[in-house]
């Protein structure tokens, strides 16, 4: 299937080639292997998921529909707080896909961890649709540790009711090519979307992201923070859009990206967008792209560290900072040794 993925809400100069990315020849045919740890309060199944805008776009949904990938829905009823995290570990073979729904009733609270591993090479796709009732809170962690020759499409669409809060931690630690889409509708008044994105891309890896926060409710908030490291011949494109629509008075949108470039052959594109059709709002975005501060390097060199050690340490620190924010201790404890093992092998 030929797909156009991650088309931003506001396209820009055509010659930059950032108005969506073409992915040709991708196909899925079977559900990905899933190992699930489901806390007692969470129910499998639920009502059919609504049509939600996702970050990757309609072609991603069409890909799953064409292969009749079944929906896997987890529902937390109103007023419930899950005692433990919902842990979903997906293993993707070539052509594997998953279509997940997370539905939280009014005033409920859930931590969900989705961990992706894969075959060494191939293509897989996963879509997560999220419906948060009024006052619900979802803390969602998505960790990608796909194989070095694997291409993964990870797509999120979310709808937040009044006072609902989506906190997303997204870690991209592996895979050759990753298409990462996320669109969050802040429909209810005082709803919020907070995301921390951490990535490290090396070799010939590609990371193509499209994050959107669409504010329609009053006094809504979003905070999109991305921090990452590019090395060797890596390519990364980050599109982040704060869309402050007419009627969302009192809303605030913040967005920041910090990219550390490790090698002269990397390629970084950053498109931080604010769209604003409401007077009584505040939108901020910032980006810092480059190398480490020379004063910092000088200081650390004076303490006996080699320049390569300094860069490796600072790169790891960025990822660790995101990992520490993961609200599930079991996941954190598993992740640090896995990272250390990966570094030792490298």
């Amino acid at each position, binding site marked *: 299937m030929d797909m156009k993925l991650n088309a931003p809400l506001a396209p820009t100069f055509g010659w930059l080639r950032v108005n969506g990315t073409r992915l040709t020849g991708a196909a899925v045919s079977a559900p990905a292997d899933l190992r699930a740890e489901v806390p007692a309060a969470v129910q499998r199944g639920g009502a059919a998921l609504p049509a939600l805008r996702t970050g990757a776009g309609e072609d991603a949904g069409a890909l799953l529909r064409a292969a009749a990938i079944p929906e896997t829905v987890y529902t937390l009823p109103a007023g419930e707080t899950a005692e433990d995290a919902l842990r979903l570990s997906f293993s993707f073979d070539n052509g594997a896909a998953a279509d997940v729904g997370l539905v939280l009733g009014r005033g409920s609270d859930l931590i969900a961890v989705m961990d992706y591993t894969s075959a060494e090479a191939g293509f897989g796709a996963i879509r997560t649709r999220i419906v948060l009732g009024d006052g619900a809170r979802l803390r969602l962690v998505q960790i990608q540790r796909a194989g070095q020759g694997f291409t993964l499409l990870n797509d999120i669409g979310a709808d937040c009711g009044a006072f609902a809060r989506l906190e997303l931690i997204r870690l991209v630690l592996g895979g050759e090519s990753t298409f990462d889409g996320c669109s969050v509708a802040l429909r209810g008044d005082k709803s919020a979307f907070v995301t921390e994105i951490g990535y490290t891309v090396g070799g010939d890896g590609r990371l193509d992201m499209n994050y959107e926060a669409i504010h329609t409710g009053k006094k809504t908030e979003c905070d999109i923070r991305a921090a990452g490291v590019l090395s060797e011949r890596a390519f990364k494109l980050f599109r982040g859009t704060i869309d402050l629509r007419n009627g969302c008075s009192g809303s605030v949108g913040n967005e920041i990206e910090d990219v550390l470039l490790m090698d002269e052959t990397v390629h970084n594109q950053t498109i931080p967008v604010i769209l604003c059709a409401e007077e009584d709002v505040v939108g901020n*975005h910032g980006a810092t792209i480059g190398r480490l501060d020379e004063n910092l390097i000088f200081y650390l060199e004076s303490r006996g560290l080699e320049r390569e050690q300094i860069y490796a340490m600072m790169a790891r620190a960025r990822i660790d900072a995101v990992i520490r924010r993961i609200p599930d201790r079991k996941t954190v404890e598993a992740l640090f040794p896995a990272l250390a093992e990966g570094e030792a092998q490298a």
Partner: protein
Amino acid sequence: MNEEKTYVEDIDRSFYDFRYEEKDAFKVDTGLTREIVEQISAEKNDPEWMRDFRLRSLEIFDRTPMPDWGPSIEGLNMENIVTYVRPKADRMSATWDEVPEDIKNTFERLGIPQAERESLAGVGAQYDSELVYHNVREEVAALGVIYTDLESALHGEYGEMIRAHFMKLVPPTDHKFAALHGAVWSGGSFVYVPPRVSVEIPLQSYFRLNAPGAGQFEHTLIIVDEEADLHFIEGCSAPKYNVANLHAGCVELFVGKNARLRYSTIENWSKNMYNLNTKRARVEAGGRIEWVSGSFGSHVSYLYPMSVLAGRGARSEFTGVTFAGAGQNLDTGCKVIHSAPDTSSYVNTRSISKSGGISTFRSAVVVDSKAENSKSAVSCQSLMIDSDSRSDTVPAMDVRTDKADIGHEARIGRISDDAVFYLMSRGISEEEARALIVSGFAENVSKELPLEYAVEMNNLIRIEMKGAIG
């Protein structure tokens, strides 16, 4: 205070919105055909290479799609546009007395001859498709500075220099309206500043489009040689008609080694204008381009001056303000290409939206793999005056080396109620207070302009802010 308010009310938009019948003018048919392009070429007595260039550009125009990413230009139908209008002046003059009365009156009302007497080293005045006046002070000419109309220069001793530079920075293949420009360009100025010559006071070109349904396609070519220095000011306006007008000019600036060029623009086209202008500068080692841009007019604008930092240590500064009011969709910003080591760029913009106006800041900073140790800082701030309006910020950064430091920050917000309250407590009306705050918000541009132009810009802001309350 009362006197001051009367002054503001006196200079309403009719200051720019007067018109004269163009009964004696010659114009080509509407639309764009090979015959029309050949007719314009014949009118211009083009050398053969230019005629061929025009026809090649037309072919490129025909096969190039409309842009699919910016404001809608559906209201612009090339079939209805007259691409060449020659005013009744039968030749360009070097004294205002020889300019036809109504055209001279137009520029008198716009204050151009007065500005020339008081604060400019030279002036070019274009009316519709042709320059009607061009003059440069003797002492500036004595330095070897060439400031003339492009068409005369094309046929004179600088013909080869123009051929070597004309549409080399902005080739017709760049986009559809660059191709259109290549096919039907007419008028515009040529400036050459010899090495190590510093022009102490600015040169100015003023473009006035009087004919309804017409396009203006002037070409400005400026070459500032090594270690030379120039400030060039561009102004433009038009009366408002109920049919679409089109401006698709082209500005090509060549800044030599260690040279400096400041290019200032106060754009105040009428609000039926599609302003699809292209501006580009190439800066050699140690050179510096400074863009100062105020965008107030037009119905739709696509305007992104580009700096190509081609030599080591080249530098670009862009300072801009955009004010979008009712019926306006102004998509403005800049582009910077760092393609040499140690280059730097600084972008500082403000945009204001009110009464349903749409203002978009759009930028691209590209740092290629050769641009080691380059730095770029982009700062854009937007002010929303009401919720009928819209303000978007669409920056892009494309970095292909690890040895660069790129920073970007943007903020969208509203006028602080506290600031308005403070000013009102000092006896200023709410309308005046808001106008004052907006003028202060746009200070980044006004402080970079010569005083007379800063005053004009602030007056434009106050005109636009009238009636902003309630």
